[in-house]
């Protein structure tokens, strides 16, 4: 296993890069687990399989990024995923929230994928191998997730298709999607919460774009989709905390459930 962090000489830059990788991996772990909760109960068989596949990919991505961090640390991937207290997780709070309903999961997926695609592109241009190549590979896989989210969002809230198959939205569907968007938006802005690490990465040339520029790029990509669906983009203040380890009880509850089998025998080999 090639070590991604050990080759960064400056300890402050190394710590900042580790923090960035943790954000990526923790985001993927949390949303991957939430998506997996749709397995068996999706609204139709195709969506059930799709959400389960997306979950499988996000958890796989989390594992690969954790591997990059864990190469130089005791305990490996399992310790990072299963054996950290909530305050050490760096995921955005939106991703730990319960699914609530299909419309919330779809809204969250659409908002997250637009952010994640851009972030992986930035990571792919960080100039530090093997992380850059890995990020480029993961980015290619993520693109189908965004397509799925966009298709569902238009199906739920968009204008009726010319040849509808009896599955077009009602006013109720759009109202529910709008409510989900209002609920998710402030937490989605939490994607762009910064810490000291952001400045360090920008100065070191590893991160090519400030959080403000990332947010602009994200809004430029999600606004047209939301507006095409007749949704109003909320004007809310960001709800922050995740990037500094401040989480909701939802994370603790999910993490307790997620780690139940692992905790029963942490030394077991699977």
């Amino acid at each position, binding site marked *: 296993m090639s070590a991604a962090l050990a080759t960064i000489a400056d300890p402050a830059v190394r710590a900042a890069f580790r923090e960035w990788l943790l954000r990526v991996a923790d985001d993927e772990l949390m949303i991957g687990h939430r998506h997996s909760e749709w397995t068996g109960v999706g609204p139709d068989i*195709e969506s059930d*399989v*799709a959400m389960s*596949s*997306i979950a*499988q*990919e*996000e*958890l*796989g*991505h989390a*594992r*690969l990024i954790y591997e990059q961090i864990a190469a130089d640390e005791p305990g490996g991937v399992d310790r990072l995923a299963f054996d950290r207290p909530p305050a050490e997780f760096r995921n955005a709070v939106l991703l730990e929230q319960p699914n609530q309903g299909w419309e919330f999961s779809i809204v969250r997926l659409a908002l997250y994928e637009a952010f994640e695609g851009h972030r992986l592109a930035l990571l792919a241009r960080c100039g530090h*191998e*093997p992380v850059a*190549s*890995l990020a*480029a*590979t*993961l980015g*290619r*896989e993520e*693109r*189908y997730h965004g*397509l*799925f989210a966009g298709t569902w969002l238009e199906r739920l809230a968009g204008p009726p298709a010319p040849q509808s198959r009896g599955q077009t939205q009602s006013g109720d569907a759009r109202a529910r999607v709008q409510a989900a968007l209002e609920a998710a938006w402030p937490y989605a802005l939490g994607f762009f919460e910064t810490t000291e690490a952001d400045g360090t990465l920008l100065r070191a040339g590893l991160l090519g774009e400030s959080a403000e520029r990332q947010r602009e790029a994200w809004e430029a990509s999600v606004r047209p989709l939301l507006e095409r669906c007749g949704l109003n983009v909320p004007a809310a203040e960001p709800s922050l905390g995740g990037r500094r380890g401040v989480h909701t009880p939802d994370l603790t509850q999910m993490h307790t459930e997620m780690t139940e089998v692992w905790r029963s025998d942490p030394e077991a080999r699977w």
Partner: protein
Amino acid sequence: MTAARPWACGAEPERPDGAARPWACGAERERPDGVAAASLERAAWDVLRSVEDPELPIAITDLGLVRDVHVDAGGRVSVRLVPTWTACPALVVIRGRVREGLLAIPGVRDVSVEYTYDEPWTLERMTSRGREQLAAHGLDVPACRFAEPPVCPYCGSHDVAMDSLFGPTLCRSTYVCRQCRNPFERFKPPAEP
């Protein structure tokens, strides 16, 4: 690029049927113990050609998973593989089978099998023989890009509708043919680099 097949990629037809990529041209002769290493390398490729993807009837060499093979005079074999989809559960199985097969070669003392990401997996990596095997299995495989018009593998019609981007495995999507009314699957590569 031609108007008739705007997705034609050119690289693929240059590849000889079922042959591995042009990696080891002459380099083996420069090694001190060249004969032994060359014979181990041939044996290693025989093993790789015998390992099938557990989810599809295709050898990993035809799928284009093998990036390179290095053999040294001390009997150490290193194989680097390129995953199609990074979260595919078959990757663990494939790595295990490659490892086991290589360790069974007389003269091999140590084996390393790693997945690498510095070169993306693309459809161009699949051999013609591999494509034929997947077609016979009822899987439509795009020549180069997922955006190409899909073809029904049963009747050849282009009058098809996508059922779902996400099929029974990460690398497959599902379709229905409006012409012959058969459902079918289509190989789904990761989006273009």
